[in-house]
């Protein structure tokens, strides 16, 4: 049963990587990373039981924390990213708007 759950989680991790690579917007990528790391937490906890090493739970806990830190960091700095790129993308976007109309 542990093995089955492990395999299911690995499959989901692969799906998350696919979304992270193709993901059209930045937020899709962040979502994929977020999902990937939650699944890593579960995977490590499961592996700890499969291999009989309950030490692994400490690592799982670190992951849960680090995941949160990196997601918050991306969102915190995304204001700056938007701001910096606005000069760069303004021209492009206004052009596309003209095409639309």
């Amino acid at each position: 049963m542990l093995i089955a759950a492990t395999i299911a989680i690995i499959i989901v991790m692969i799906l998350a990587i696919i979304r992270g690579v193709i993901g059209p917007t930045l937020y899709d990528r962040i979502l994929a990373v977020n999902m990937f790391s939650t699944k890593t937490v579960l995977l490590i906890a499961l592996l700890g039981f499969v291999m009989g090493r309950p030490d692994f739970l400490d690592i799982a806990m670190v992951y849960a924390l680090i995941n949160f830190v990196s997601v918050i960091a991306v969102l915190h700095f995304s204001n700056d990213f938007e701001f910096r790129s606005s000069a760069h993308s303004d021209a492009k976007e206004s052009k596309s708007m003209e095409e639309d109309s």
Partner: protein
Amino acid sequence: MDTALSIGSAICLLLGSFLCLTGGIGILRFPDFYTRMHAVSVSETSAAGMILIGLMLQSPDGIVVIKLVMILLMVLFISPASSHALAQSAMRHGLKPWLSTTVPAIKNKHNETASDITSDKGVPPSNL
């Protein structure tokens, strides 16, 4: 007693795996960011809960159960909070939800290029 515990844990683990897989299919198949996020965040919290409870039922001693409870609490706190922050930030930067009734949105979706600007419709309002 032991059989009951192992059956219970097996049920929990299977349920968790199933929820996990639904989340995975959701992140790949749903049409836009908000629906994907919905699929992921709902399934993620319940799947993590189910799998961790399943492990708790199998764990040999007390300290392991305590650690698992800590991980579960952490996931229950962190996962919804980061989903909330993600959705809020996406909304703030002008990523519009996809509405099935608006035909132009569908057209836009299919014309999406790899240019990877956060929003391809209109100018993102930088400060709301």
